[in-house]
């Protein structure tokens, strides 16, 4: 208790440390959440070139506009005009309905509708692509059923002829493919990694630090006492942010406090140890922060949420394993969506205990420095 109080007083005397410890974490978390408030990429602007001008081509246009992912914002009379707007990013895709579409369909010549889409914005491209494929399937079945009905005047049988096999797709654990529930937990893990490492280095390097013992055991206890406040505060930050997402916003989850708490606390402590490690490398706050920044700034890329970890190179996987956030996220996803048993959650917890090997390194470096100074 005493340790908490004295450290709290120290934090309160430093306006910027206070910000990093208390109010920046929730503000930044909310900002990141706000970015993805739309949930899914919807109403993406696309353009249409209708070279056919038939009732069928107008139907295609209607289908495009009716798709929740797409929004027709421009009509062009030539492809060249439309292409300029793609490279301008005014539209993300250009759908070209060929001349004689209607006639060719009637003749059974299977015409092709072309869709040019901007693949530079990969996530947007994928959303547009799946919307287009969906429309293609709907159209194909509709046209085909119309054709088959002439011979087989039973709708159900005609349907079966046009789609000999159907497939039903299930997006497990994220039923409506919501980007916020997909990205925000990982973004928060990366954000808290940065915050905790920085705060640890700042707090360890404060100039007004009192003399610490040079006996390793006592020194370790002393360091732990000084870090306790941050362990508590950041664990509470993470818990509150999750409570907001999965409680207030009612995101689907299978979480339990009992499973989550050890995971969060170990994650915070592992990050603190990383921070302490970077501090004892130089015993200079500024230089340590630069090193820590180099290590942890790309954390999000390595977490393997956007690009899967299993498809990374061996080096990238190794680098990823050095990040506490990667193991925290493994454990978190196990719990949030798979409702995995204790055995599945235990593994990431055990892995994070490995970060304890940094404790002796930190303690002995501190001792060396004390001895050197004294």
């Amino acid at each position, binding site marked *: 208790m005493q340790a908490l109080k004295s450290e709290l007083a120290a934090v309160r005397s430093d306006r910027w440390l206070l910000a990093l410890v208390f109010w920046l974490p929730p503000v930044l978390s909310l900002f990141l959440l706000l970015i993805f408030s739309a949930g899914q990429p919807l109403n993406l602007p696309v353009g249409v070139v209708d070279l056919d001008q038939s009732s069928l081509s107008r139907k295609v246009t209607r289908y495009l506009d009716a798709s929740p992912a797409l929004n027709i914002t421009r009509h062009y009379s030539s492809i060249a005009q439309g292409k300029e707007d793609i490279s301008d990013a005014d539209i993300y895709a250009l759908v070209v309905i060929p001349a004689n579409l209607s006639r060719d369909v009637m003749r059974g010549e299977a015409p092709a509708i072309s869709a040019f889409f901007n693949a*530079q*914005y990969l996530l947007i491209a994928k959303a547009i692509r799946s919307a287009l494929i969906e429309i293609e399937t709907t159209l194909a079945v509709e046209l085909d059923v119309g054709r088959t009905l002439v011979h087989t005047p039973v709708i159900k049988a005609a349907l079966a002829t046009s789609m000999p096999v159907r497939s039903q797709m299930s997006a497990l654990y994220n039923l409506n493919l919501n980007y916020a529930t997909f990205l925000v937990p990982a973004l928060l893990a990366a954000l808290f990694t940065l915050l905790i490492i920085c705060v640890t280095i700042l707090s360890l390097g404060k100039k007004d630090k009192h003399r610490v013992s040079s006996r390793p055991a006592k020194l370790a206890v002393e360091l732990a006492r000084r870090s306790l406040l941050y362990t508590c505060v950041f664990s509470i930050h993470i818990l509150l942010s999750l409570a907001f997402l999965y409680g207030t916003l009612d995101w689907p989850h299978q979480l339990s406090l009992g499973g989550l708490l050890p995971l969060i606390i170990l994650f915070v402590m592992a990050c603190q140890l990383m921070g302490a490690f970077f501090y004892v490398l130089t015993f200079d706050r500024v230089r340590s922060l630069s090193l820590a920044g*180099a290590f942890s700034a790309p954390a999000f890329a390595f977490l393997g949420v956007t690009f899967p970890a299993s498809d990374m190179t061996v080096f990238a996987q190794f680098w*990823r394993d050095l990040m506490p956030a990667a193991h925290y996220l493994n454990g978190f996803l196990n719990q949030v969506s798979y409702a995995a048993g204790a055995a599945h959650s235990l593994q990431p917890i055990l892995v994070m205990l490995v970060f304890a090997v940094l404790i002796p390194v930190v303690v002995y470096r501190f001792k060396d420095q004390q001895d050197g100074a004294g």
Partner: protein
Amino acid sequence: MFLNRLKNEFLNIFTDKAVLITVLGGVLLYAVLYPQPYLNQLPLQQAIAVVDQDNTPASRRLIRYADATPQVHVAGRVGSISEARSLLLDGQVRGMMIIPRHFERDLGLSRSPVIGLAGDANFFLIYGTVIEGLAGAVMSTGAMVRVRELMLAGVPLSFAVKDWSPIHLNERPLFNVGMGYLGYVLPAIFILILQQTLLLASGLIGAESGEKSGLSLSRAGSIFGVRFVAMFSIYFLLTQFYMGACFEFYGISRNAHIVDLWLMITAFIAASVALGILFGLLLPGRELAAPLVMVSSLPMAFTAGFIWPRELLPEPVLWISQWFPSTSAIQGFLKLNQMGAEFSQVLNHWWGLWALAGFFSLLSLILMTRSTHAGR
């Protein structure tokens, strides 16, 4: 006089270890480190489990089709859905395909059987890949049945092959044609890395400087000018390195005309350097530079529009993001260099960057000339 000061400024930069770690170490390290996760470009050959409740030639053919797609490979055949589920939990497979009983019979009777496809949507890229592969295999099976039926009805093979669907979609991805991850992430993120290391370095230098306020206009102008020229020249070169050698090495397209590119780089670096100088003036101590730069990176990356469409950003987020040079710069550079836009098409971003450069410079000069007793 000016040259002397400039020499001193360069000396300051190159003798300060923290600044060196950031400018040279950071920029060089990230050129190697950041692309690491994405070097494989596409996630392919995702492991899936198959629950074959039919076990007939038709169902086995579907499984072979699935295995033959580049997206998935069949890692295991299991007897029940619950077994497949536990494989998924263990992370041994990323998706599953469920072939119902009487699949072959229903196919023959034109009852259009339903194949169950499922993927782990905790990872969107994996989910998309798994579903793409499996849906492709199901579609091939359907197409084959159609072609056979059409041939039975007397349609010649060459027509049947073409005619199994009345209409087709011809997909043409533009710019990042292979839809790979390096070409998607690197051109944008490298710009952010340049801006962030620049901000950090200027923050470190500026926070150290004793002359932060209460200066005469000419003195302030000279300090500002020297710092501006020093940082500008370093980062102009580093940007060339990223957009030249690094893009070349990672196979990223460079469509922009070199003069257009220089014009854009000039505006981008000017805005970033001006923001950096302002940042240095506002910082109370140099130890705060790294934490603030680091935590701002994530919001900056995700509001720049290359990941999440800017059309969908809420108004306040949009408003805040326009103050980061990276936002206009990333859009401008992507259009010029990746999407082959003309310079006239990116003029709004270019002027936007100059407006930021002017605004941040003015603010810096005002701060430096303001007479306060707070200066140390």
